[in-house]
């Protein structure tokens, strides 16, 4: 027995419990979904390997519109969240606890609750419409713009922005707090304006964290079910809602449900790989800490 195991081994052993859970439950689920999407583990009838479910999904009227809904809402929600969170973090980096406290509130609210809150607040008979009516801004609640359950997906984006801005804010804050005030003084000695200082010092230091955080937001919002379920439209529904409908529908549709689930896993995977490539390149250019 070797009493003094080297550091690397100890480190690997420490992650085994967490890794085991991820691999068994998460990895197992993914393997199951992939196999079932190709006709394995059939619920009804014999299992056989086939592309049929992929072809069937591709040929449906709903696939491309639903993909568009999922991509549109998740990309826009990610971009808006990233800009707002970065802006807020830059403005309040020295402001301290008050802002962190404010930001922690939405963070603790589950996504489903956030979605319902958006409905209650923003629907045509909701809180904001009543307020606008009471203030005499609109003649009737029907005059309030339709934000929830409309086909572009503004309600979905709104709910995600409300939830993810605090997440990204708290993700970025420690990074920005590591930037010391004296650095700006040094930069000024080199005749840098506030703008060039931000562009050449702050932004490159912030970028890796912002990119990772945004990727987490994108991967989550692209795949999540509850917000588009509550705030989306019947047709075209987001891929997550379609997958759920297929999964709870007829048994023969199970492979198609898994196809949709696999697509939902693949898109963030590809984006993630792309991000890793960009990272490597930017690291060589000296971006990051």
């Amino acid at each position, binding site marked *: 027995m070797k009493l003094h195991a080297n550091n690397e081994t100890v480190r690997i052993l420490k992650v085994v419990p967490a890794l085991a859970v991820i*691999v068994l439950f998460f990895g197992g689920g993914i393997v199951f979904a992939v196999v079932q999407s190709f006709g394995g583990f059939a*619920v009804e009838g014999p299992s056989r390997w086939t592309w049929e479910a992929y072809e069937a999904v591709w040929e449906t009227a709903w696939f491309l519109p639903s993909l568009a809904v999922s991509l549109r809402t998740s990309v826009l929600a990610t971009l808006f969240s990233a800009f707002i969170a970065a802006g807020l973090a830059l403005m309040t980096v020295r402001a301290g606890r008050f802002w962190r406290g404010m930001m922690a509130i939405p963070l603790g609210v589950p996504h489903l609750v956030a979605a319902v809150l958006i409905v209650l607040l923003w629907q045509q008979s909701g809180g904001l419409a009543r307020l606008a009516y009471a203030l005499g801004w609109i003649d009737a609640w029907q005059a309030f713009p339709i934000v929830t*359950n409309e086909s572009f997906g503004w309600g979905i984006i709104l709910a995600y922005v409300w939830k993810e801005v605090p997440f990204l804010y708290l993700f970025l804050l420690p990074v920005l707090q590591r930037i010391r005030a004296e650095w700006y003084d040094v930069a000024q000695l080199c005749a840098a304006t506030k703008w060039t200082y931000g562009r050449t010092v702050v932004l490159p230091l912030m970028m890796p964290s912002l990119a990772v955080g945004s990727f987490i937001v994108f991967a989550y919002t692209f795949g999540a079910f509850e917000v588009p379920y509550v705030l989306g439209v019947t*047709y075209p529904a987001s891929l997550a809602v379609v997958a759920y409908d297929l*999964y709870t*529908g007829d048994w023969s549709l199970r492979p198609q449900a898994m196809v949709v689930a696999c697509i939902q896993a693949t898109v963030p995977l590809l984006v993630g790989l792309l991000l890793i490539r960009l990272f490597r390149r930017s690291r060589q250019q000296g971006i990051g800490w």
Partner: protein
Amino acid sequence: MKMYTKKSSWRTGIAILVLATLTTACATAPTPQEKFDPLRAPWTAIQQASSGKTVNLYMWGGSESINTYIDQWVAPRLKAQENITLRRVPVTDTVEIMNKLLAEKAENRTTGTVDIMWINGANFRTAKTKELLLGRFADQLPHVQQYVDTTAPDVAYDFGLATDGYEAPWGKAQFVFIYDSSKIAVPPKSIAELRAWAQQNPGKFAYPAPPDFNGSAFVRHVLYEVAGGHAPFLDETLTEAQWLEKAAPVWQWLNAFEPYLWREGKTYPENIAKLDQLFASGEVWMSMGYDPARAANLVKSNTFPATTRTFVLDNGTLANTHYLAIPFNSPQPAAAMATINFLLSPEAQIAKFDPQHWGEDMALDPLKLSEEQRKQLQKIDRGAATLPADVLATHRLPEMPAARVTVLEQRWQDEVARK
């Protein structure tokens, strides 16, 4: 980010997965043991075997009043009388239980986690045809023998499929429309009148998108009225194609109806909870539901206005019975039987009839109750929003076979939602 750790963790992952598969494969080897068979045991033996046990009741958890009835009325009394601990496990859609049991069946898992499940219709069809059920237990229960009319068609057949004692009736539900009497003086009496009303009041009516249970039921009411009555749609000898051909007028009707709906039918409430919320906030003027007492309950909780009332159509509204069943791999089948028997006691059923607890119709035959129990029933005030029992009873329409309901829901997606 260091990428090399990712690669090695991937390899470790595969190794762990392979190991795990091997160990679970060994663990499922059959272990021979003498088992007590609750389906053949005398009732006293079942009671003995169930004392001190814990029973998991898996059920749709979307109704506050139903959950409260189980947790606060049933559970303490069951503990006191039978010494059984009841654990309610909520699900959002009963089909989730079917998926779980199907997966367990495929894995040959003989001891699952579900002891009792609340089901009917398509889920019972799945459970019975895929052999996910324990067996014919219902006739063993003393309260079924004593108080249930097992030959009544609405008990013996669940959406056209013979129950054969694989499930025990728990209650009866009937579809009603909900409206606000301060906004609608005279509610419509037929689907045609409903349409005329919606045309005069555009945007004030909506139905939840099928496969929502209640939205799907609304579509069946339209089908019965605009496609020649209910009889042809109950005919099990028709092929699916023939059946769909007969049903075709419903799609034309529903599409022509769309412009008068909430949001002009560009989107539908995703479930009954959303429709209720739109009704409560006054955005629409009607709601609906497969529970005659729900409106009264929501009035009492101040969710709906006090002027809320319900109505049925002159031709009647859909009615069905819902049941309790025991899965094939229930860990405590004896305790499950004792629990279901308790839920079918006149005491538990009368409490369930009371809108204070739930307010839905009994599964028991009122004629088999004692004089005193019947008096108790008559004394219960079910609220102004609940129709009298005789009005409901004389306006009942039968449900169609469960498989047809599923087809209808799927077609709705293609014919209405995507057009």
